[in-house]
């Protein structure tokens, strides 16, 4: 060790010790909970059943279950750029689950992202949204997870994120920056239904987790209606979760409140059918919302202003494409023949789909959004089953990854994106190749939560 370095260390060491101590305290401190003093929480059947409903609103099952595992026993693999993490067992099992959690422990996990042992949860757990859950709903959720969910012993899987990236303590800084504090606060300027909608969308439903773009630090760019980035559409898991704002082409601008209600209740309307990651959210969550809650969601979403940057001419149907699909015409526009062979039987030569059963491609948000991931993904991998009211859908999207080359898929999607008034955007074979590499065919038998 040379002298200069020695000197430097002498100066720096005490500072480092102080700093480290401070940081250590900060990153491992147990945040306070509203329920710290509660000794025997209410676990009454009424609250349990209320809690089950909140768990539906929050779609806990989506992440904390896998097809061949019991509900809430975790295991779902979530791939991050750093490695895979696995959702944990949240049944009340004493050793592998959350059986030993007090209400305050539970609250800290849900609203602050801190596990009982002080570990910071990865924000794959949407606690930045859940942070604003009401005390009442947290209490109910707790009751449900303690008394309504059967305890199942199932070991948690270790994440594959390598050291040093697997260190969780830096998350506490992240939390400090990005996790809002306190329960949802009513906006006095809005009516009750709007406020209920806001609570459902921003908090329990955590819609922003998929639909809001994230910044470099992976935080959502906006957490509520005051931010124009909120729900403006985002890429997640090779699906583009479209804008839920009032953009006429790429968002909900052409939908009315009833359309939104139908979509979330039945999985379909004349504009779209749920697909991609939304299938899961529909199957296990939105369809179970009460009608009043769904109406509130629809009401709230229709209040979100369209994005200024998206001000374009609203899409209008152009009927000329059908001619390009005549037998002796369709060899010229590349993609037309593939459209005819693979797509037209369901989506129609008019691109309008089959009433509410098979969605239109003409004017569909997925055809008009700049990001092409969703269209590529569903073309290659097909759709998972949409199960409405216990009944699997009559029609599902096949997987074409074995039938279409990158070039053919790119051509047919480019054809779709240039037809029926859609906005002529081009998909390249490389775009297809990239998504092909990173995705697998959709499971045709869905994970459905059914608790007896």
């Amino acid at each position, binding site marked *: 060790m040379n002298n200069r370095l020695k000197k430097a260390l002498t100066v720096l060491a005490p500072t480092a010790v102080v700093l480290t101590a401070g940081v250590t305290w900060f990153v491992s401190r147990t945040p306070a909970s509203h329920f710290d003093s509660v000794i025997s929480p209410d676990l009454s059947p009424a609250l349990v059943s209320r809690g089950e409903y909140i768990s539906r609103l929050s779609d806990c099952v989506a992440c904390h279950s896998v097809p061949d595992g019991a509900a809430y026993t975790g295991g779902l693999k979530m791939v991050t750029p750093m490695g895979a993490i696995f959702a944990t067992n949240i049944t009340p099992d004493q050793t592998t689950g959350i059986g030993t959690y007090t209400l305050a422990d539970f609250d800290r996990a849900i609203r602050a992202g801190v596990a009982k042992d002080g570990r910071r949860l990865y924000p794959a757990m949407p606690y930045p949204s859940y942070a604003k859950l009401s005390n009442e709903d947290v209490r109910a959720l707790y009751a449900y997870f303690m008394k309504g969910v059967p305890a199942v012993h199932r070991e948690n899987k270790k994440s594959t994120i390598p050291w040093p990236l697997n260190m969780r303590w830096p998350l506490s800084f992240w939390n400090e920056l990005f996790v809002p504090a306190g329960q949802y606060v009513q906006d006095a300027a809005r009516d009750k239904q709007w406020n209920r909608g806001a609570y459902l969308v921003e908090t329990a439903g955590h819609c922003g987790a998929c639909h809001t773009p994230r910044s470099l630090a992976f935080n959502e760019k906006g957490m509520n209606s005051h931010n124009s980035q909120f729900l403006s559409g985002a890429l997640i898991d090779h699906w583009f979760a479209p804008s839920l704002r009032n953009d006429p082409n790429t968002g909900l601008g052409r939908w009315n409140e009833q359309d939104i209600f139908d979509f979330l209740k039945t999985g379909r309307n004349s504009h779209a059918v749920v697909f991609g990651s939304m299938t899961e959210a529909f199957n296990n969550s939105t369809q179970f919302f009460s009608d009043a809650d769904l109406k509130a969601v629809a009401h709230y979403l229709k209040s979100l202003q369209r994005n200024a940057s998206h001000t374009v001419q609203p899409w209008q149907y152009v009927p000329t494409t059908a001619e390009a699909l*005549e037998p*002796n015409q369709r*060899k010229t526009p590349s993609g037309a023949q593939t459209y*005819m062979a693979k797509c037209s*039987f369901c989506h129609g030569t008019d691109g309008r789909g*089959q009433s509410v*059963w*098979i969605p239109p491609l003409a004017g569909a948000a997925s055809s008009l959004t700049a990001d092409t991931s969703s269209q590529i993904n569903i073309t290659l991998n097909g759709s998972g089953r949409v199960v409405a009211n216990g009944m699997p859908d*009559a*029609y599902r999207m096949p997987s074409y990854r074995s039938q279409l080359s990158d070039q053919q898929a790119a051509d047919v999607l480019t054809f779709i994106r240039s037809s029926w008034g859609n906005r002529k955007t081009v998909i390249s074979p490389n775009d297809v190749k990239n998504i092909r590499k990173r995705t697998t065919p959709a499971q045709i038998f869905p994970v459905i939560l059914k608790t007896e």
Partner: protein
Amino acid sequence: MDLTINGVPHQLEIEPETPLLWALRDDLAMTGTKYGCGLAQCGACTVLVNGQAVRSCVTPIERVAGASVLTIEAIEQDDLGKRVVSAWVKHQVPQCGYCQSGQVMAAVSLLKQVPHPTDDDINAAMLNLCRCGTYNAIRAAIHDLASSPENKGA
């Protein structure tokens, strides 16, 4: 649900999203239209709706209420259909035959639109699967029809 199949009106008590295929097969006992995949992949279920080849397994019946549906059962009532059937017999097209109702419907639809199809037209329109490999016989039969003097299309 009111349906007109082969010119005959039918009334069915059935959910609007039921695939036309199953209304035909189970409710109307018209089993000439075949189930192969239920996923728009094989064409065994092809029928004509307003003259266009349609895969009935992905056609909710509410979409054909009021339309005119032609199935293989009545194919010989159609002039062109009758000629397609005789070409199929002349060229001894079918093997197991399971796909052939759909193949005949697809050929009729093609010839209605393009009376003198080229090989490329045939490739573009004859999309139904045949596991027995009758493709060359199908192609020959269609070419033969296209060149027959009474063929003027429709």
